[in-house]
């Protein structure tokens, strides 16, 4: 049931990203060239809705089914800067961030497939190198979950 809800939300998110221009190579470049404010408006509009929404949901403290709400903040470390910079270069090069890579595949843009391949390889590479980066970049130590005992 929850998977069905997530699927519908994913379809809606992808469709809206596509219709707003967030999956369009030219709009991404024109954002970075300061030639079009479209993408800044999109990110700003999303933050402007989510910010008060989170205040309300926190006050409520529960999901629709009465579960306690879980909002785990992301850890601070030097990877925020180094990873952010690498991602920014990749975003500019491909004209895609991770969500739009998938939406672009759906839109029939064949060049999004090699971008997805690269992104998966890059995530895998980070998994391989993570133990070596924990110290220098002060990343959080690994806590292995239930999947591995």
């Amino acid at each position, binding site marked *: 049931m929850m998977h069905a809800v997530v699927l519908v939300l994913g379809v809606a998110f992808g469709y809206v990203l596509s219709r707003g221009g967030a999956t369009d190579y030219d709009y991404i470049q024109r954002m970075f060239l300061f030639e079009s404010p479209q993408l800044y408006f999109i990110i700003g509009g999303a933050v402007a809705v989510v910010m008060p929404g989170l205040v309300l949901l926190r006050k409520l403290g529960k999901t629709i089914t009465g579960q306690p709400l879980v909002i785990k903040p992301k850890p601070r470390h030097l990877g925020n800067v180094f990873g952010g910079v690498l991602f920014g270069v990749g975003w500019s090069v491909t004209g895609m961030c991770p*969500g739009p890579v998938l939406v672009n595949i759906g839109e029939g843009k064949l060049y999004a497939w090699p971008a997805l391949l690269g992104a998966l390889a890059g995530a895998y590479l980070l998994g391989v190198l993570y133990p070596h980066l924990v110290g220098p970049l002060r990343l959080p130590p690994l806590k292995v979950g239930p999947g591995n005992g």
Partner: protein
Amino acid sequence: MLIATATSPWNGFLTGAVLGVITLVLLWVANRRLGISTGLEDVCALVSRRPYFQREEVSGSGRWRLVFFVGLVLGGVLSKATSPGGYDTYWTLGMFDQVIGWGVAAKCAWMVGGGLLIGFGTRLAGGCTSGHGIFGNANLEIASLVSTLSFMVAGIVTTNVIYRLVAGGGS
């Protein structure tokens, strides 16, 4: 005009607001914090037993991100199929074709390289435009503000180097 849909884009602020509502529904109904790049690790976890991909943030999440991934692809299909011209597959890449003009093989190599930076960079930063840019910033998290500043500045510098310095000149 959008390449993908051959239509004018929706109003930017409205688009963002709808994305924001979807983000809130995801939290309120499914109790999930929006984060797309972590899903790359869910995919890796399908084929790798490395401890990094079996850690609790990934393995304990019920793989909902894989379902969300499928939804994103279908959302793209829906958008393209309902646009003028209907569904189609293509290699054309807007400004890239006009200014840089590489063929398919070189374009693929370019995309694999950029993809590597996306995958490695987002996972090192702990998030992307969704988990940091939308959710984390709205939640006033320092890690997200720092990451967002980093990827925005890097994107601005890279695109300006590519289109204004290397390829552009006066174009």
